[in-house]
């Protein structure tokens, strides 16, 4: 990292840029809605009543704070740094996604819009949106690639039970990116009465900022829990990166702590050299998709290419713009973990700690194990356990050749 002091807390700028990344690359119709959202958010952000409402919901509905748990048996087995898990899997609905949907649904409520829409990959964000919509009595429509509808059938059914309409998207690669396209099209059409709850720290400004702000509860808690339990800051943070919301939520409150190293773990799929992966920060180049400039997976003609990951939640060709900026600054290291390594970590954490991670989170677990093994026994590594693995049981059973 270079020596000039970067102010991490002051980003993005007022037009939504993180250096060359971010911004607002959307069709004209949506500008008005984005302006409206931004000014409402800027106002409510400073409103103690709004913050109190979020805090109340996070405590009594989501069940925060989530524990910071020292995984002793896993640490012993790894034989290196002390491994702590930030237990976002224990949140209501089973993942970090709900931290964001609580916040955005409150924004929807304040905006007076009665209909919310969302895109989802693994289905966790769809479930988290359907959940808060049920609680607030809002109509909820969730777009999901038809491939993901098959891979994540349990979550599809959960959303339906919660009263949401799930619309399978048949265009393009039929995964998360296409679900996002379709949600944008819905929003353009129904912009007057619809609030779009984006599920990750990507999309046009102000979404990357507001999703980050809502997810920062993860890092703020982890920071004070770590100080309380160990008397000092961690040496490293590890989180998986799909669109990047759980990672930026953990990282952001530590960015000014120069001694804390950070690792964002992308989906390496079948291996970076095979091209069959979802790791734009490790193997992509900057471009424009879904309303922002960021690292992307694309071909030489600028077409977005199909991604591959065993975990639906990481199967996305882009990434939130703040991560692209942090990569170029060198503040965060971005690495990749293959399907096979993630599967092995899924099994091993389940056996050693009795904690079944989501396949997304298993990527972070796998990298943390490699990292910690090379570190001192006094060192501290915090791993974001972004979600629980129940939703993935059918996928794992299928890989094992078992009919459940």
């Amino acid at each position, binding site marked *: 990292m270079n020596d000039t002091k970067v102010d991490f807390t002051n980003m993005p700028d007022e037009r939504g840029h993180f250096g060359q990344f971010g911004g607002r690359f959307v069709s004209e*119709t949506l500008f*008005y*809605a984005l302006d409206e959202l931004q000014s409402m958010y800027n106002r409510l952000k400073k409103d103690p009543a709004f913050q109190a409402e979020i805090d109340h919901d996070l405590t009594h509905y989501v069940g925060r704070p989530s524990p910071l748990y020292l995984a002793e048996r896993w640490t012993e087995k790894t034989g290196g740094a002390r491994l702590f898990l930030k237990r976002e899997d224990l949140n209501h609905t089973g993942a970090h996604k709900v931290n964001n949907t609580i916040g955005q649904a409150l924004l929807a409520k304040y905006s007076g819009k009665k209909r919310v829409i969302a895109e989802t990959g693994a289905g966790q964000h769809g479930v988290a949106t359907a959940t808060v919509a049920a609680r607030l009595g809002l109509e909820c429509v969730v777009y999901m690639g038809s491939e993901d509808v098959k891979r994540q059938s349990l979550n599809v059914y959960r959303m339906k039970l919660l009263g949401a309409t799930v619309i399978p998207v048949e265009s*393009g690669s039929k995964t998360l*990116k296409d679900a996002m*396209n379709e949600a944008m099209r819905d929003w353009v059409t129904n912009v007057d009465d619809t609030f779009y709850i984006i599920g990750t720290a990507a999309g046009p400004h102000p979404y990357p900022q507001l999703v980050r702000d809502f997810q920062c509860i993860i890092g703020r808690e982890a920071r004070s829990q770590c100080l309380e339990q160990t008397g000092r800051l961690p040496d490293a943070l590890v989180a998986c990166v799909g669109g990047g919301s759980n990672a930026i939520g953990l990282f952001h409150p530590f960015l000014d702590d120069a001694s804390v190293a950070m690792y964002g773990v992308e989906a390496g799929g079948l291996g970076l050299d095979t091209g069959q992966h979802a790791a734009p920060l490790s193997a992509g180049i900057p471009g424009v*998709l879904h309303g922002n400039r960021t690292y992307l997976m694309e071909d030489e*003609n600028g*077409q977005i*290419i199909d991604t591959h990951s065993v975990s639906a939640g990481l199967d996305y060709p882009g990434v939130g713009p703040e991560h692209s900026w942090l990569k170029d600054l060198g503040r965060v290291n971005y690495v990749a973990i293959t399907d096979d390594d993630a599967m092995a970590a899924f099994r091993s954490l389940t056996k050693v700690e009795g904690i079944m991670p989501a396949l997304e989170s298993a990527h972070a677990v796998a990298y943390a194990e490699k990292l910690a093994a090379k570190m001192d026994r006094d060192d501290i590594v915090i791993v974001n356990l972004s979600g629980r693995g129940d939703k993935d049981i059918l996928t794992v059973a299928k890989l094992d050749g078992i009919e459940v």
Partner: protein
Amino acid sequence: MNRITETIQALKQQKRKALITYIVNGDPTPEITLAAMHALVSAGTDILEIGVPFSDPMAEGPVIQRGHERALAHGTSLRSTLALVKAFRETDKATPIVLMGYANPVERMGYGEFAQSAAEAGVDGLLTVDLPPEEAEDLHRCLRERELESIFLLAPTSSEERVKRVAELAGGFIYYVSLKGVTGASHLDISSVREKLSVISRYSQLPVMVGFGIKDGLSAQAVGTYADGVVVGSALVEIMGSGHSQTQILEGLSNKVASIRTALDQNSK
């Protein structure tokens, strides 16, 4: 003078409205597009808008999305689209051509290289759906250097301030999106179009073309009463995707465009 301005001025003198037609390069196959462009012109098109296919066409409805997918299945690209324009210019040096697409293929080629190649091929303007004026300044500068026009969209939701900003960078014409929605939608509201056009004319001298939701002579004529011209897209892409033979497709295109032309020319009487 740029071909776009030249064409529109000539139409004004004849008191006629402009007819802009949109098809996607390479849809359904690369072989048909050149012939289709000539057929569109013969049937009464004033300005050709050629869609550059993109993997994630966020602003398109299902009809044009499928057009993009058909074109990409044959490897159609921005480069092959520039080659297409060059081929078209061998026999038609007058009809203006606007490329319409998304930012990423242009970013990938590089703004400078795009502007140079496009000007050499005979392109007249570029409309990038997801590149609003705020983000378009660098590209705009490159286009200006090669005397290419930046075409921008305005929408029913555009504030007066945004109308003003677009008016500062826009060239050739302004493309007014007639409705809140994606291409091919059908809830066109003529009276709201009329109101917005009068707001736009307060800030810009440029002609305003109205698109999205215009699919036949009737809707074209209604919009043409207030606008300087109309853009027809989905109705033509539907014909391109009909699965019929090349001859039938070209005939279908010609008939459709001729009927819209006839209806639109009623406005000049």
